[in-house]
Structure formats: structure tokens, C-alpha cells
């Protein structure tokens, strides 16, 4: 068995929420387990508030888990100290959705890209040449060196954010809705660039998105999240061609397909309502209140993630 680069086990994050008399918890991530292997892209999909960003932040140890663990290259990230922690911060990083807020508006592109190197005490012989080379990697050039973030379009700012991370020679990058704020013509440019960089540098990605078309294009395997739980994990093609979990099916049937003929003939598995609040998630299967197949067992006992066929995991009592 190949050892995964990232191993997540029983991971939980409960955030405290209001309530003076009795404390209530937002169960943002509630016991999830999965692996990410070197060189692959694991897609993480689900609707807003299902816990995707929290999962990313937990993996990178930007927040402390309530329970469970994350191993990076075999080491428990919550136990990293000193040099090892510093190395982890260099090797694993995250790109956020909003290219407008993730860059310091008062710094030039050159300073923005050099900043993490300074933090990590990394010397380069020819900083200007080094940054220029990175800019070319992300489709920019030396004319952009001394400009400020506001002079760039959303797509270009996302390129700068990626260059800044590449400067540290990372192994693993979490891409959290990196193109959600961009128009489709620019989105395609960024997605292709990310794929090229992955090939060139052997990067491992976790690609978070609510856009299933984008996730399918980017991922080798896909995990579907619903209300703090992973309900299905499968290779990308399998998940789209043979979805098993009722939520995955509903999600796929809900995507508008850019093909009028297919749109007219596609199955109409419509679910009603909206995801309930993660503050008091329903007992048993969390999808039960919206699931057309729910039976008594579903409302009482939570289904565990089970391998139904090779590499295809589902958490549902139907299987």
C-alpha cells in the first residue's frame, strides 16, 4: 500500500455558538476520514456551509480540531513543533477564493512574493530574477514586478497568490474555490495553469468547490460533503457516471448542463428544501429529512462510510 501524503481520520470541528444558558455547538466538521495521495487531486464538493473550508483549515492546522487527527507525510500535524512545523508550513499551503482580500494592497508584487521567503529565512541569490521566473510560471512577467494588487484583474491577482505559494516549493496546495469569483473565460485559464503546474512540480492538490463541472475537470477522486459529513468518495468519472448516495444523485441532477438536448432529457431527481442548520443536525443520517428513500433506520442510526466497489465509498443504508 502506498502511504498517503495526507491522512485524515475522525476529524471534527465544533464551533461554540451563542446561547447564554446552555452552550450550543456548530458541528461544522463532524468525524470525517479520507486520504490524499501524492500527485493526485482530491476534489471536495458540497453546498455552502457544509464544512469544506473548515476541513481545509483543519488540515493545514490553521485551527485546532475538536477531535481526530491529520497526518502529513506520516506525521501528526497537531504535534509538529519548531523546525518540523516550519517545514510543514512551507510544504503545505492554501489559496483562497477571494483574490481581492488575500493580497496586501500596500505591497508591490515583488514584495508580496518575497514575503514568505523572508518569513522562512530563505535566501535567494537574485531575488528579482527569482520572482520574475515565478511570474512567468503563472503567466505574468517582469513588467508586473513593481505594481500593486489594485492594478490587476481578479484572475491576475489569483495568479499572484499562486506565485507566492510556489516560491516556497510546496508539495501540497489546498485550492479553496480558487476560481469562484472569476468569469468563465478567465476561470479556464487559471484551471489549465493549475493543471500544468501540478504536472511540472508533482504537486498534490485538494480542490474545494461547489461547481461540479470544475471539480470534475480538476480531480482524480472526489469527496462529496453534506452537513459536516463525507457521504461519498469515488474516482471522478465513477462519481459522475455512477453516483450512489441519494444526495450525490440530487446534486448531480441539479447542475444546469450546458447542452439543451441533454437538459431536456436528464433525470429530474429534485430534492426540496435546503440543508438544515449544523447547530442541531438531525440524528441518524443527516440527509434523511430531504431524502426520498429515507426509512426509520436512517433517522435513528448514522450510516458509516463503506467501500461498495473498488475505491468507491458511500455512507448510506441503501448499500
Amino acid at each position, binding site marked *: 500500500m502506498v502511504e498517503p501524503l495526507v491522512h485524515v481520520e475522525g476529524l471534527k470541528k465544533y464551533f461554540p455558538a451563542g446561547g447564554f444558558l446552555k452552550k450550543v455547538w456548530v458541528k461544522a466538521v463532524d468525524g470525517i476520514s479520507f486520504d490524499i495521495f501524492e500527485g493526485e487531486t482530491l476534489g471536495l464538493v458540497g453546498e455552502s456551509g457544509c464544512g469544506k473550508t473548515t476541513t481545509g483549515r483543519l488540515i493545514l492546522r490553521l485551527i485546532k480540531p475538536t477531535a481526530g487527527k491529520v497526518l502529513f507525510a506520516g506525521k501528526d500535524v497537531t504535534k509538529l513543533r519548531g523546525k518540523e512545523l516550519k517545514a510543514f508550513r512551507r510544504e503545505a499551503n492554501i489559496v483562497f477564493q477571494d483574490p481581492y482580500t488575500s493580497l496586501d494592497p500596500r505591497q508591490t508584487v515583488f514584495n508580496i512574493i518575497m514575503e514568505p521567503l523572508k518569513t522562512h529565512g530563505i535566501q535567494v541569490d537574485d531575488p528579482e530574477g527569482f520572482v520574475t521566473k515565478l511570474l512567468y510560471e503563472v503567466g505574468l512577467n517582469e513588467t508586473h514586478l513593481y505594481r500593486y494588487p489594485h492594478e490587476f484583474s481578479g484572475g491576475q491577482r489569483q495568479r499572484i497568490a499562486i506565485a507566492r505559494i510556489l516560491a516556497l516549493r510546496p508539495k501540497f496546495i489546498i485550492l479553496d474555490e480558487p476560481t469562484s469569483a472569476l468569469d468563465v473565460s478567465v476561470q479556464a485559464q487559471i484551471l*489549465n495553469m493549475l493543471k500544468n503546474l501540478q504536472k511540472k512540480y508533482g504537486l498534490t492538490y485538494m480542490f474545494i468547490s461547489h461547481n461540479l463541472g470544475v471539480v470534475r475537470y480538476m480531480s482524480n477522486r472526489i469527496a462529496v460533503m453534506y452537513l459536516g459529513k463525507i457521504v461519498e468518495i469515488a474516482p471522478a468519472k465513477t462519481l459522475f457516471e455512477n453516483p450512489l448516495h441519494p444526495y450525490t444523485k*440530487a*446534486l448531480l441532477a441539479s447542475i444546469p448542463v450546458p447542452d439543451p438536448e441533454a437538459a431536456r432529457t436528464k433525470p429530474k431527481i429534485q430534492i426540496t428544501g435546503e440543508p438544515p442548520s449544523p447547530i442541531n443536525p438531525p440524528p441518524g443520517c443527516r440527509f434523511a429529512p430531504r431524502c426520498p428513500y429515507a426509512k426509520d433506520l436512517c433517522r435513528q442510526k448514522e450510516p458509516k462510510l463503506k467501500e461498495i466497489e473498488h475505491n468507491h465509498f458511500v455512507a448510506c443504508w441503501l448499500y
Partner: protein
Amino acid sequence: MSGPQLREPLIEVKDLYVYFYTYAGIVKAIEDMTFTIYKGEKFCMVGETGCGKSVTSRALANIVPSPGRIVKGKVIYYRDGNPVNILELSEEQLREIRGKEIAYIVQDPSSALDPLYTIGYQIVETMIDHYTVKDWKEGYKRAVELLREVLMPDPEQRIRNYPHELSGGQRQRAVISIGLSNMPRLLIADEPTSSLDVTVQAQLLELLRRLVREHGLTLFLITHDMGVVAEMCDRVAVLYAGNIVELAPVDEIFKNPKHPYTMGLLRAVPNPQADIEKLEPIPGTIPNLIYPPPGCRFHPRCPFARDACKREKPPLVEVSPGHYVRCWLHAE
């Protein structure tokens, strides 16, 4: 689809120009815009951020926000068969039409709702304003029916709720109810589902389709999502930098796109139903509309651009029945 009854025009936009007079310069937001929306059809306008979709939709009811100005053109509205130019009506006549005959649904439902009043109050108020109901009592009864029609859960409870007590999807349902409350002829929906999750979006799109079918509404739907176009509309206009570059029945646009921008847009969208090896992005970015490129506004990004494209603006030409293209490749 396009049966014979659809051939009766409801709105004709003719040679419309809208400019914004800003400190930085004159933003040429809409130029040379001509199109017709027929009664009972679902007409879509698609394009990327800033291409002029919202401004166009606002021009239809003469509500272009300052510093914008309609500098030229006509918007002919067939009011019970009689053509009137919306841009020449008095403020009073316009008020009669807006909110009653022409209703708007916008992307952000919160901006369309007043946080200080209940959902019920806001629905009834619109009806009272336009004399659709005789009093508040009848209004509240009708509001519950409307909310039930848009599949709002527990409508009797919801009319007592304030906007912040509802989810995003529920707020958008409330806005749709307000839009429907006076039985409009034309429903203008400007990215009505862009801020919602896909399972909620699917429910609302299905709702809009049903309303058009059952109430004989005409829908003018604005979106940036080619998937929504494919699922929702009969005919579609593709906008680029303030111009319609292509206009055709929906199947024609997807099967037989003619404008290089439309073709590029279709190849740049990752289709969830297909295994795609490589997307083909459109190079470059959208132009600044204070200094739009001369000639064809798409020429700096177009793989087929030739000299003529840089000098002269191509006209919108009907290349086959109902299929219009603005490109020198198809203007001969």
C-alpha cells in the same frame, strides 16, 4: 418552443445606447443594441461580468442608475397591443407599469427586501399600491397563496417573518412572490439564482419555468451560466462588452455557434457530464469600456481577427432565419 403564438412582440429594443458619465471618463456600457422579446417566450441574455446585462434590463423600464444615461434608442412596449416608447413616458405612467406589468427579480434578494417589514407586509403593500387587492385583509390572504405557489414552506408562518429570519433561498422565493403579486406580463430576472446553492437553484428554475407555463408570463432571464441558458430559454442573446454579438434559438447557439466569442465561451465551460481533457480558455481579459477597442470589440482576444476587424465595427447580420451574428466572418 417557438410556436406561432410567440411571434407577437412584447418589447422591442431599438438602437439603444447607454453611457455612464464617470470621473474617469465616459463608460460606453451599451451600444447599438437591438432585439425583440416575444410574448410568452423565455428570452435569455448571457455574458460575463460587466458586459451590460443588468444595464440593459434596467433600460427596459427606464431605470438606468446615475451616472448612467440612455443617450439614444427606443424601448417599445406593446401595452395591450398598443406600442408605447417606455423612454418617453411620464414618471407617473412608468410607475403604473413598473412593479405591475413589468416585475424585477435581482440577484441579491436582501437588497430587494426591506429589513424593517415582514415578508407578508411587503407582498401586500405592492398589491395595495397597484390596486390589485381591495384591502389588507384580502392582501394577506392572497400573500399566503402566492407564497404557497412559490413553494415557500409554512406560508402562514412566513408572512409574519422578517427577511433576516429566512434563508437565502426562502428570501428569493419571497422576492418572486412580490414580483408575481400583480400578475405581471414581463418578469425580468437578473441572475436570480447566482447566489444560491445548486439544489436550491434547481428548485427555483423549475418554479420559474412553471410560472411561465401556467400564467403565460414572458421571462427575460439574465445569467452568466451557459448551463442555465441551456435549461431555461427559448432564445438567447450573447453579450460581449456592451454589444449583442450573437442572438439565436437556444439549440442553434449550442449546436451551431457562429461568433468566435460564443464558440470560445462554450469551450471554456467545464461540462459536468463530460470527461474533458483540456479546456480551451479565451486569452486575455474583457476590455475597459471607457476606451473600448476600435472596430470589433472582441478583436484583441479573437483568434480570427483580421485588419478589417480592427478598423470597422461589424453589424449584427441575420445569417439564417432567427440567427444573428456580429462578426466580419459572417457579414459578407
